[in-house]
């Protein structure tokens, strides 16, 4: 069984909570005591129906205001796949939380209300998913029951979204007509829309081929050097980390960056086993044939298509703090397993959060704004473009005084 992580987006009124509630209910991920608690709260508040949003809005303040403020994570499994849902907030002031949820997603599920069509918010969500390199977007056109399951309504939204999405960098786009409330095309294919020939939503989620965007060769950012210093393992020296971008095998020639020293992989350890291959995504310990100086922050790379070593990066930055980002500002950064300091150079272009169209050269970047920025670093980092590898192509910016994460960077 494999794993699909997806992020959901859409405003409260689009029926997102109802849709998630139905996926969870029909896949048995909601338990009787949880449902009873939600039913009893709904009754005591005098609602006419069971408010499934109470299941996902886990904080007191969210339940009080009836809105989603922060990402909630939900889990369900079918025989074919395990799913992790990052249920993200829709309001523009919580964009940073939406970005948190989408940063690890393989797929974005965007909801729209069939009666209203595409909103500014649904476009923004698609744009942010595209920016974060999420390779699939499903647009669920919800509340089809309220437009009499009319194919013309669906076709109009489908065409409009497909035309809009053609400008985005998302290889997989699907549009599915559903009614979360009635269950049409959620788990079972609908009897009401014979004109729709595609799969039901769950069927699509279970079978979509996840194209992870690690298109370059293998890298291992070193997290930790394992030196047992025990009698039994006196000379053991292993480099622990998580493989990204490709696979390593014993005998492979590698280059250690930024130093540029070369060696070969002597062995790959995972606890008490030695592996014949270390595929993308696995946490392993590499042993090398030569005794060279390697520490946390270095990256062990396949020699072909080796990444770039640089002390200056051009990146798209999502700014997440209320105090704006300005030229000349000093910040801390964390990129793979390396931390250091960065100075903000030029703020080249601000991008419209709703369209990613350039808005010209800004003086500063405010909360939830996105722009292209150059940074000068206190030490070299080992990079790929974000489009080629999410791990080596991303970094965070940290305010040195407060310690808070204030920016997310995607390397060009």
């Amino acid at each position, binding site marked *: *069984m*494999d*794993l699909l992580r997806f992020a959901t987006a859409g405003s409260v009124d689009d029926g997102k909570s109802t849709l998630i509630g139905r996926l969870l209910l029909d*896949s*048995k991920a909601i*338990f*009787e*005591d*949880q449902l009873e608690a939600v039913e009893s709260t709904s009754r005591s508040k005098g609602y006419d129906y069971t408010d499934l949003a109470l299941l*996902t*809005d*886990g*904080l*007191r*303040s969210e339940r009080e205001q009836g809105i989603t403020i*922060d990402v*909630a*994570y*939900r*889990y369900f*499994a*079918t*025989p074919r*796949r*395990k799913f*992790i849902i990052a249920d993200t907030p829709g309001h523009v002031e919580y964009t*940073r939380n939406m*970005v*948190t949820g989408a*940063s*690890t997603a393989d797929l974005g599920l965007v909801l729209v209300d069939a009666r209203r069509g595409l909103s500014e918010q649904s476009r923004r969500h698609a744009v942010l998913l595209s920016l974060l390199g999420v390779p699939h977007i499903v647009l669920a056109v919800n509340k089809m029951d309220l437009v009499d399951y009319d194919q013309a309504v669906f076709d109009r939204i489908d065409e409009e979204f497909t035309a809009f999405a053609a400008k985005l960098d998302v290889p997989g786009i699907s549009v599915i007509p559903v009614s979360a409330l009635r269950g049409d095309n959620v788990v079972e294919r609908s009897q009401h829309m014979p004109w729709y020939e595609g799969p039901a939503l769950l069927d699509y989620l279970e079978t979509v081929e996840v194209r992870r965007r690690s298109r370059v060769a293998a890298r291992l950012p070193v*997290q*930790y050097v*394992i030196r*047992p210093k*025990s009698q*039994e*393992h006196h000379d053991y020296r292993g480099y*622990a*980390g*998580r493989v990204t971008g490709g696979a390593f095998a014993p005998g492979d020639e590698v280059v250690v960056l930024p130093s540029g020293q070369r060696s070969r992989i002597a062995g790959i*350890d*995972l*606890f008490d086993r030695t*592996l014949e291959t270390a595929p993308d*995504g*696995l*946490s392993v*310990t590499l042993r090398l044939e030569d005794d060279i100086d390697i520490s946390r922050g270095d990256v062990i790379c396949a020699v072909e298509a080796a990444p770039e070593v640089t002390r200056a990066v051009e990146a798209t930055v999502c700014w997440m703090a209320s105090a704006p980002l300005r030229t000349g500002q000093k910040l*801390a950064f964390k*990129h793979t*397993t390396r931390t250091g300091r960065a100075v903000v150079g030029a703020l080249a272009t601000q991008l419209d959060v709703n369209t990613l169209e350039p808005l010209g050269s800004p003086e500063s970047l405010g909360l939830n704004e996105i722009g292209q920025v150059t940074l000068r670093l206190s030490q070299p980092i080992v990079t790929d473009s974000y489009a080629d590898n*999410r791990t080596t192509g*991303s*970094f*965070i910016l*940290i305010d040195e005084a407060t*310690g*808070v*994460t204030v920016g997310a960077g995607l390397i060009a």
Partner: protein
Amino acid sequence: MSIEARAADAVNDAQDQPDQLDQQRLSELDLLEAESIHILREVAAEFERPVLLFSGGKDSITMLRLAQKAFHPARIPFPLLQVDTGYDFPEVLQTRDNWVERLGARLIVASVEQAIADGVVVDDGRTSRNRLQIGTLLHAIEEHGFTAAFGGGRRDEEKARAKERIYSHRDDFGQWDPKNQRPELWSLYNGRIHPGEHMRVFPLSNWTELDIWHYLAREQVEIPSIYFAHRRRVFERDGMLLSESPHNPLRDGEVVTEREVRFRTVGDLTLTGCLESTASSYDQIVQEVAVARVTERGATRGDDRFSEAAMEDRKKEGYF
């Protein structure tokens, strides 16, 4: 397909694929394991004084197993901390000691009874041992100067936990501020803290109860015997089956009977209920959990039943 048939299929699926490492596609357990090991190593590298909160229950055993793997063949580079309520099951304490000995780990026990005797927390006779653990835990973290504490919490357990970051910042009062959490992007964890603050880190955030059981079944490691079906003298209270014990004085009308039961969670024995079950192996437990209709905390934990926000409120104060 019916829900039960799907669940049975899921069980068979997991059993048919014990090890997929030779293939390019990793199973969901391999991916969860890899993510957790990554987190454990990040913390060990970036924090000066980490500690692993170890109750001896299934989640903390899973976490300890992952830590064992993360640093092999070296020893785990941080100590374990157990908050002893004084009302713990003896089988759990035995398992705890076996693990500590096997791994050559260092165990620190923070005792609620000692904390009461020292005046660190106040036992007014109405506050449960579960709640008194909070003050005991925060005191131990402060006393030892721990800067990061691994907890075995999972997001599928409870709706407040579903909102929590993997690195969960605590201020110098040990409090969680759920409305003001740091953004957490990709797997770039931000471990910056000020003096007096600490980080709670949840390597099992993305695991579900069923994942834990699949993993324990795959690893075949020691867990407390009370997770498996056994005969026990029990009585009913508030719809839960509680264990007969000197710590659990019977109230009017409560009758002790012997039944075949197992525990789904292990905590303070005055608040942790068991369920009638004949599941006596890992595989049988996996089957049982796969078709369970009630959450583990709802079924067996008195401490979560006080209000809709019981967990959120305790977490804000510094609970696990």
